[in-house]
């Protein structure tokens, strides 16, 4: 099987961050960057498929500036076979502009499966995967939480979580899937993998981005929650909590 995994470099959201002087972006000073969470699951799915389905190739693609090579290298050290860096000075916030660049690259790649994370943790958009599928004219299942392939038959089945329900779907290959958390716990890079990654090929070419019609006008920190209060200790504080919930917060 030939599998593409589209990944993205995002800031670690566990860290404290501030808004840059342009009021439109995050100040990168002091931030750590990594593979977006869900992309880690997508990569894991690809590696497991390659292991279970016999000979194949896992190719990682990422759009962005020079620094994007960091996460391409990381994906290679985890087990991907080669990387494609689509160079752009910035990654547009507009998912459709990014999808155009990926679709142009993937179009003649002969991939059986094209995987994405369900969404990037920086934009929170979750649009690039289904958009890329649409541009390529390929079937798509988004937010996949369980997956089985019958590669010989050229079909697959997937589950995705709806609110309060699970949806089961059937689809033909080739297909585009976006992967939800929990499907398979991602492995970590090994020292051997890190050494091997240095010899794996990474091609770099300019990203053919689509036109941009969705932009960030301003970015602000959310209003802080008013400082809370500790109303007491132990079970003895429960009556006071009940009173506050009923009379002050009016939620009881």
């Amino acid at each position, binding site marked *: 099987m030939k599998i593409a995994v589209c990944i993205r470099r995002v800031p670690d*959201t566990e860290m404290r961050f501030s808004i840059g002087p342009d009021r439109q972006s*995050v100040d990168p000073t002091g931030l750590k960057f990594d593979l977006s969470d869900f992309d880690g699951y997508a990569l894991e799915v690809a590696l497991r498929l390659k292991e279970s389905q016999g000979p194949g190739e896992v190719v990682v693609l990422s759009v962005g500036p020079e620094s994007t090579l960091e996460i391409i290298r990381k994906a290679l050290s985890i087990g991907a076979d080669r990387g494609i860096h689509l160079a752009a000075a910035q990654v547009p916030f507009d*998912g*459709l502009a990014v999808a155009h660049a990926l679709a142009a690259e993937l179009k003649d790649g002969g991939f059986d499966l094209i995987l994405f994370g369900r969404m990037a943790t*920086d*934009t*929170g*958009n979750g*649009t*690039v995967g*289904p*958009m890329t*599928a*649409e*541009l390529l004219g390929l*079937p798509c299942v*988004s*937010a996949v*939480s369980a997956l089985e392939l019958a590669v010989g038959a050229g079909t697959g089945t997937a589950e995705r*979580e*709806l*609110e*309060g*329900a*699970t*949806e*089961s*779907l*059937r*689809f*033909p290959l080739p*297909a585009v899937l976006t992967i939800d*958390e*929990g499907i398979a*716990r991602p492995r970590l890079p090994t020292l051997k993998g890190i050494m091997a990654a240095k010899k794996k090929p990474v091609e770099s070419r300019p990203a053919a981005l689509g036109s941009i*019609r*969705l932009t*960030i*006008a*301003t*970015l*602000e*920190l*959310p209003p802080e*929650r008013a400082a*809370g*209060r*500790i*109303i007491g*200790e*132990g*079970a003895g*504080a*429960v*009556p006071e909590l*009940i009173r*506050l*919930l009923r009379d002050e917060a009016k*939620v*009881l």
Partner: protein
Amino acid sequence: MANILAFAELRGGAPRKVAFEVVSAARAAADASGGGEVHALALGGPGIASVAGQLARYGADVVLVLEHPGLEHGNPEVFSATIAARLRTGGYRAGIFPASAQGRDLAPRVAAALDLPLASDITGFDMTSDGLIARHPAYIGKAIATLRLTGTPALVSLRPGAVAPVEHARAGRVEMLEPGLEPGQARVVVTAVTERAAARLDLGEAPVVVSGGRGLKAAENFKLVEDLAAAFGNAAVGATRAVTDDGWRPSTDQIGQTGRMVSPSLYIAVGISGAIQHLAGMRTARVIVAINRDKDAPIFKVADYGIVGDLFEVLPRLTEEVRKARADH
């Protein structure tokens, strides 16, 4: 003056709460920007035209209905093709989807098919002369982005719970649609939609969420959390990532950066330290209560009311008191 299209999500042939939210949001946007009709789309199996009255009550002037025996469970390709075909007829300045699992699946397909701007998971928006302005929590809610969409119709998906449904009765004239793609020709097929538990409230829709973390020490102790939720009667049970990773609770219960984002009226965090990953999923709750034995736990920084103490003593007492308070109503 142009119209606004609202995708009314159905489940089992009935509108979900988010359907009323998007119709209400469309109504408000139309009225605030010089008028125009709200067209609600209801797509599904035979008989779903009967939902038109409900959608009209929240402000739909027209209810566009596609009924087909092959669409009982829905179909992403048929739905997106039908929505795209309708938008292509012109006369729309915006299209609104819910930012639900279904809406977030359909909206990008439609945007790419028609080459339109799309803003996802927005909490509010205003129409402009050449598109719209939307507010969107980015960086897992650690920043609020104001987005500019250029081009019409501009598409958005609206975060569930961000806009309250408001009754605003309109005619709701039913117009039947043809599918944009014959259901028999769809490549992706929905084979089943399995409701998890009929009696259980969904985390995203429950007015009260009671969540447990590692402090509960073992899977079986979630009984205490479930008892408290049951005492409220309108509560859903959530969990932290640590708990779902350990298999104490199903992954669908996870609240946080990689799980569900919830905004209930009341959120009770039990034995949860308050990692940023978790706070990302619940910090927009209206009232937050924390019960934790560590008085320095970060959860107390966001909690409106905190109790420091042993949850194994506090929780049974709280359950009893909530039950009493509910009985007094």
